C-alpha cells in the first residue's frame, strides 16, 4: 500500500479520476437542467452514444476535433428536439420514452458505425492542453491543468449552470416549472417552451459528453459509453439536483475508479479481493443514493406532464 501513497501515484490517480469523471459530469449536468424543469430523460445513454459516434465520425472524416465536438453537440440537441416533441407535444410517458431513446441510440450508433466505418479506426483525438502558468505548477500542474479542453469545459459548466439556475430569470422559471408548473403557467411562464429549452440544452450536453468520451479515447466502438449515461442519471440524484453536488458525485465516482485501477496496477489488490474492490464505485453510489439523498426533495413535478387546465 505504501507504493500508492507517493506523490507521483497520487497525482496520476487524481488526473485519471478527473478524466474518468468528465463524461459523467457533462451528461449529469445536462440531466440536472432537464430534471429541474420536471423532465426525466432516461435516454441519456443513447444520446451519449449518438453524440460519441457523431463526434468520432466527423473527426474521422474531417480530421478536426472542433467539428467533431460541434457534431456531437448538434446530434445531442437534435435528439433533444425529438425527445421534447415526444414528451411535451405528444405527452408520452417520460420513463418509457427515455428507454426508447436509449435503445434507438444504441442501435443506430452501432448500425451507422458498421455501415460507415466498419473496423474500429483510431483518430487523432483531443490532445492535452496545458493552461499557461497553471500547467507549469509543481505537482498539481500536470494533474489538474494539463487535461483535454473538454475537461475544463465540463468543470466550468458547474458554476455556469449554478448561475443560470439560481441567478437568472430563466433559471427561476426552470425551477418554477419543475416544482409547480400550474403556478408558473398562471404567471405567464410558458411551461412547454421552458422545458423544450432545458431538454434541448440537456441533450446537447449529453451529446457533448459522448463526444468527450470518443475524442478522449480517440476511437469508437459498439456501446462505447457502456452505461455512462445511466450512472450520470444516478449522479443527479447523488448530487441532489445541485451542480456542485453532481460535480462532487462525478469526482468521487471517477476518483474511486482511478484509485482501484492504480491499486490493481501496483498489485496492492489482486484476485478476488481486486474484484470486490472493483465494486466500490457502484456500491458507494448506491449507499449515497440511499443515505445522503434521503430527504432531499426532487423537483415536485418531475416526470409529470403539464396540460393547461388539468
Amino acid at each position, binding site marked *: 500500500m505504501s507504493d500508492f501513497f507517493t506523490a507521483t501515484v497520487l497525482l496520476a490517480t487524481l488526473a*485519471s479520476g478527473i478524466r474518468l469523471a468528465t463524461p459523467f459530469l457533462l451528461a449529469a449536468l445536462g440531466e440536472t437542467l432537464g430534471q429541474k424543469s420536471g423532465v426525466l430523460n432516461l435516454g441519456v445513454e443513447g444520446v451519449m452514444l449518438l453524440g460519441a459516434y457523431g463526434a468520432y465520425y466527423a473527426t474521422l472524416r474531417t480530421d478536426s476535433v472542433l467539428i467533431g465536438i460541434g457534431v456531437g453537440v448538434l446530434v445531442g440537441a437534435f435528439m433533444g428536439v425529438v425527445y421534447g416533441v415526444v414528451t411535451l407535444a405528444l405527452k408520452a410517458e417520460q420513463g418509457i420514452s427515455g428507454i426508447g431513446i436509449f435503445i434507438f441510440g444504441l442501435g443506430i450508433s452501432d448500425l451507422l458505425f458498421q455501415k460507415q466505418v466498419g473496423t474500429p479506426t483510431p483518430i487523432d483525438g483531443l490532445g492535452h492542453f496545458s493552461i499557461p502558468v497553471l500547467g507549469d505548477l509543481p505537482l498539481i500542474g500536470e494533474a489538474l491543468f494539463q487535461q483535454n479542453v473538454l475537461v475544463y469545459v465540463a468543470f466550468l459548466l458547474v458554476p455556469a449552470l449554478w448561475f443560470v439556475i439560481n441567478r437568472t430569470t430563466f433559471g427561476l422559471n426552470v425551477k418554477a416549472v419543475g416544482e409547480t408548473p400550474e403556478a408558473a403557467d398562471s404567471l405567464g411562464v410558458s411551461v412547454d417552451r421552458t422545458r423544450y429549452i432545458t431538454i434541448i440544452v440537456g441533450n446537447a450536453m449529453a451529446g457533448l459528453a459522448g463526444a468527450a468520451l470518443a475524442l478522449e479515447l480517440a476511437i469508437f466502438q459498439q456501446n462505447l459509453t457502456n452505461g455512462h449515461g445511466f450512472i450520470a442519471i444516478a449522479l443527479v440524484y447523488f448530487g441532489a439536483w445541485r451542480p456542485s453536488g453532481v460535480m462532487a458525485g462525478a469526482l468521487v465516482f471517477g476518483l474511486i475508479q482511478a484509485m482501484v485501477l492504480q491499486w*490493481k496496477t501496483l498489485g496492492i489488490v489482486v484476485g478476488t479481493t481486486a474484484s470486490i474492490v472493483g465494486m466500490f464505485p457502484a456500491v458507494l453510489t448506491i449507499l449515497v443514493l440511499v443515505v445522503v439523498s434521503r430527504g432531499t426533495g426532487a423537483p415536485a413535478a418531475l416526470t409529470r406532464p403539464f396540460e393547461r387546465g388539468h
Partner: protein
Amino acid sequence: MIKTIQTLTRKSWLAGLVVLALVAAACGDDDEGRDPDAPIRIAMVGPSASNDLAFTQSMVDSLDRLGQEHDIEVDITDGTFVIEDAAVAIRGYAEDGFDIVLAHGSQFGGSLSEIAPDYPDTYFAWGTSADTFGLENVYSYSVKADQGGYINGVMAGHLTESNIVGVVGPIEVGDIKAYIDGFANGVKSVDSAITVNINYIDSFSDVALAAEAAQAHVDAGADVLTGVSQMTVGATGVANDHGVIWFGSQSDQTPLGEDIVVASQIYNWDYQLGEIVDDLLAGVKNGRVITADFNNGGLSMAYNPGFALPSAVRAAADETEAGIRDGSISTGYE
C-alpha cells in the same frame, strides 16, 4: 458454392426471432433431417461487434474461411452483451432449424445448458469452455491461448527497456487468464527481474476504463503493453499516444496501431468448425471439447510488417513457437 454472411444488429433481430419461434412452435415443426444438398446453415451469437478486432471477429473471420470450403449459409447476431438477449437468439436460431448454432462466449454456457436439450437435432458449440454438459449435441471449444501469450511475452521481455510491462485484462477467466499467465511467464523466461503488472478491469466492454488502466501502467513506467478482449481499443489508444509498444491477441490488432503493434496471437476457429461440420456431414453427434493450439492450426501469430522488430527478437519468437510446438518449451500455465 454459396456463402451468405449477414450481420444483424440484435434488437430488430431478436424481435423477429421471437415471432419466428412462436410461429414455429405453433406449427409443430417435424424433423425431417437435413437435405445433404442444401447449404449448411450456421448461426452465430457473439458478445461484441463482428468487427471488434478481437474475440467476435476471430469467429466471423473463421466462418468466412469456412465458406470457402463448404456451401454454408451464415447468420450472425452480434453485440449480445446482455446474456438474456443472447439466450433468446440462441433458442430462436435452434427453433429456426439452423444446423449449427455457435454460442460464442463463455458467458453463454448457462443459457446453452438449458436450451440444448430441447433441440437434440441441432449441433451447438460454445466457448471458450471445456464443458459439454454431458450432451451429445453440444461441442465446446477452447484455445491454448497461453501459447501465443508466451511467445508475445518472450518478445516483450526482449523489447522492454524500463523492465516494466503492463497487462490490461477484462475478467480473470478461461482463455483470457491463459493468455495473460502465458504472457507473464514468457516475459519472466527472458528475465525474471522484469516486473509484469496485471490489471483486470472486470469488464469486457468498458473502453474508458481500459484506457485508464493502460494509462496507469504507463504512469507506473511500463513501456510494453498487452491486453485481451474488445475493450482493449481503449488501451491501444493510450499506447499510441505514448508510443508504447503493444502485443495483441484473438485477432490481428495491427489496424489499432500500425506504429506500435508488434504482433498478435490469432484465434483460428477453423479447426474446431471443421471438426463440427465433419460430424454434421457424417450424421453423427459426438459432443466433445475441441482445443486449438499451434500444432493443429487453431492458433497462429501475425506480425505487423510495419513494425521494425529486431531480427534477434523475431528469431527468439520463432524459436519459442517451435519449442512450444515440439513440446520442448512449457508455457508454465496449467
